[in-house]
């Protein structure tokens, strides 16, 4: 019994609704093949054969199309499926859709094909999510990651983990509820039994921990690494932002405090998705509005994966000493410290005295 049996046959346009070379319509469900037969007049349709036919419904010619049929369960959704390529006109695609719905097919909900594939066991939950990631992903990393998951034949071991837990629970409950059976060979070796419990639990723990780590990493890849540009007013944060984006995204001027609220932009650096934040410059004597922007800056710096501090040529670390709540450059263990980078600037040449003061400060 197929889990989606009894569901209506759905149809959807798989390509964007605009002018293009061709459009692709997908159908899934028990009526997919009957629809194709009726619309093309074909009696025998061989699965996975390509046909070119005129598509007619109710005596009206809709288009001349390329079509093929996938027999359940050997299809994406695991159901009977038909794919129809028509000419790339939105009008043509729309007329076919309308006629098909009038004929008795249902318009598909977003993601419904993949949902059915998941329900029918064609995809694991993880793979179904990877499909979404692959379609929406903006970076090479997201793409590669999604493809890797899709290609992996063994699914995540969720079921296995659940089964382990249920069976452990079962064994524990049995040992509680049936103490009369303790003379049984199994319970005679209670120590061995508990050792086995611990072993299986530890293995499960490792697996779940690894899963959590993968999730964090996957989330990063999908959402992008949060990089916050930080520094005193006029340090060049917005200039750097524009340079990285290769466009004049942020207003730049010689006046301090030009950027009052943070600006976020997404970009890919060497294929890694990055969320880049330009922030209001840090200073003590700002007006109220600017102070609110500065407060925001602090919050952003606290939650960033990477903070890039920009300093004036003639300035040094001391500039930031007035903001003790910001993460120190080298505090804590490597895993908990947030890295702060000082982008090298070729023209930077500070007076020796200032540099000495800075290093003293840093050591203090």
């Amino acid at each position, binding site marked *: 019994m197929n889990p989606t049996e009894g569901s209506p046959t759905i149809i959807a346009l798989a390509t964007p609704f605009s002018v293009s070379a061709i459009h692709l319509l997908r159908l899934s469900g028990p009526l997919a093949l009957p629809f194709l037969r009726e619309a093309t007049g074909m009696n025998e349709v061989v699965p996975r054969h390509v046909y070119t036919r005129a598509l007619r419904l109710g005596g009206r010619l809709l288009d001349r199309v390329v079509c093929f049929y996938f027999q359940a369960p050997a299809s994406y959704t695991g159901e009977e499926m038909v794919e129809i390529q028509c000419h790339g006109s939105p009008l043509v695609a729309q007329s076919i859709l309308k006629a098909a719905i009038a004929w008795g097919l249902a318009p598909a909900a977003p993601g419904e094909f993949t949902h059915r594939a998941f329900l029918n066991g064609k995809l694991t939950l993880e793979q179904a999510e990877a499909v979404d990631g692959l379609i929406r992903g903006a970076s090479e990393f997201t793409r590669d990651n999604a493809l890797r998951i899709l290609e992996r034949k063994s699914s995540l071991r969720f079921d296995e983990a659940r089964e382990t837990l249920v069976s452990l629970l079962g064994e524990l*409950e049995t040992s509680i509820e049936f103490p009369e059976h303790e*003379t049984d060979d199994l319970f005679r070796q209670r120590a061995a039994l508990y050792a086995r419990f611990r072993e299986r639990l530890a293995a499960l723990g490792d697996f779940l921990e690894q899963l959590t780590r993968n999730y964090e990493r996957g989330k990063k890849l999908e959402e992008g690494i949060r990089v916050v540009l930080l520094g005193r007013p006029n340090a060049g944060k917005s200039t750097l932002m524009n340079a990285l984006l290769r466009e004049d995204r942020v207003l730049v001027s010689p006046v301090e405090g030009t950027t009052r609220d943070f600006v976020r932009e997404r970009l890919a650096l060497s294929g890694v998705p990055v969320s880049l934040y330009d922030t209001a410059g840090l200073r003590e004597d700002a007006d109220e509005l600017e102070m609110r922007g500065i407060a925001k800056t602090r919050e952003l710096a606290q939650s960033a994966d990477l903070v890039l501090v920009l300093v004036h040529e003639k300035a040094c670390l001391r500039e930031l000493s007035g903001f003790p709540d910001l993460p120190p450059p080298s505090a804590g263990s490597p895993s908990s410290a947030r890295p702060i980078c000082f982008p090298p600037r070729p023209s930077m040449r500070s007076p020796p005295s200032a540099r000495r003061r800075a290093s003293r400060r840093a050591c203090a």
Partner: protein
Amino acid sequence: MPITHSFDVVIIGAGHAGLEAALASARLGCRTALITLNLEQLVNISCNPSIGGLGKSHLVAEIDALGGEQAKLADLSSIQYKILNRSKGMAVWALRSQIDKYLYARHARRAAEGQEGLKLFQDSVADLLMEDGRLIGLRTERGVVFTCKAAVFCTGTFLRGKITIGEYTHSGGRIGELSCDTLSESLRKTGLRLRRLKTGTPARVHRQSLDFSKMEREEGDEEPLRFHWKEGLNRNPRVPCWLTWTHEGTHRIIRENRHRSPLYSGKIEGIGPRYCPSIEDKVFRFAEKARHQLYLEPEGLDVEAYYVNGCSSSMPEELQWEFMKTVPGMEGVEILKPAYAVEYDSIDSTQLTHALEYKNLPGLFFAGQVNGTSGYEEAAGQGLLAGINAARRARGLGDFTLPRATSYLGVMVDDLVLQGGDEPYRMFTARSEHRLSLRPDNADRRLTAIGRELGLVPDDQWAAFKAKEGRLERILPKLRSESMAPSDLERAFSVRTAESARYAYLFTRSDLDTAALAAVCARELDEREEDVRTLAADLKYHGYVENQRQVVERTRKREETAFPPAFAFEGIPGLKVEAVQNLTRVKPATLGQASRIPGVTPADIQILLHHLGKREG
């Protein structure tokens, strides 16, 4: 002119459920009749000669705390006590006792005959008498009429009871006894749904035909133990049980005769208890096991009959002889009474309210095996609750029910009424969401005040309970202030600590045996060990229980959200057809009850929650 008796409450059936129902009703001041097919079989230990065990001793303790009889009978007739699960946490300790079944029945009969307001009759009820949709009386096979305001059916396996031993079948609720064949039809006419269940019992064998030297001796515990609140009832000698095992030779005989097994040939249709499989069931279902254990348990001090625990069967008699003779120590076995299966009618318990009253016929109550349970303790617990409610109905009082959170009795009734189920129900500690707080040692603190208020707890029990409460109140501060020295700790438990630690803290440590520590503590403080032990369990589980309490609190609101009277589940948008059917059939009173009905999913509950919220708003 037929005889007419007039009573407030009539109990039909005098087994474990019937006795508790009759005593409770009479003790609550109702004129009560107890009708049985055979007075000589009053409160028969029909199967295993033992009381208690996991989940079951918890029920016995609760029955005792409410003023019921079972714990007392068990102590009066016990010939061996044993604490099960002693190596595990105290919440799942359980007392199990071997019983002299003749002593048990004698004391039960004494209790029934000595009870003021209770009269015994030997007869067979055939018809229900109704008026204006209410039960007003019963008529027996002999035409005798009992008028009543409420009746409790505790018919056990006797409704259309049918015995099977191989190819042999005979009507009867127990071997050699009658069955009640017309009553099923009378009940069905009221709209009750009946279903067919099956149970079985092993052979009774002659002691002198057994060779105990080839078996393992299983002694009980030495220390004085008891079920009943009062000490010192048990003065019987302690008797051991004997353990032996089946082997491949035994299994082969059973396997080769599969076609002669009524269970596997399809001759038996009733559904049997999953947790009490017959020997043929074990051989076929657990084929990978090389052997199964058999306990030889004495049926009484003065009889030679031994009960072969683990070997219930419905195989033909000659095969029973054959396969039992293969078991070490049983080579010369002589069967006194063969193993047999019983099929019987039970009712669909989801047609009952939480007071165990049939929803469509006020005044008609059901308790015990007829409700689809198995076990003396489950039966007695329901009997007590149904007896209380029948008495309250007769006096025009409202329902008495117990919540899941404070008793296994509450868990059992809730499970029966909401879930029912297709197979015989037995209690497990795992059935309760509140296992850590529902312990036998605190059953009195949970329920005795309730029993007192009902009018079931006599003065001496109440006084003893108040005295215990006083002691606990006095001891608890001492556990918080008194400490144990590091040297004592190291000597008793080989645990090294830097400084002395207070008992209250020590009890929470998972590396110390709480019960052993309680014993040491009791000695040091010169207090009763069982008092210290119950407080130690409180302290040990306090954190977990507190967590549980918060969870309970969070779900309570949802649990108590009530459906308006005559609430229609049909037509609520989004509700699954199966959910609508089951909700309409069971008619839950609250959202919490609805959530425990099979086929009703969390999504359905969300829809109902939303729908109820809209109505209110």
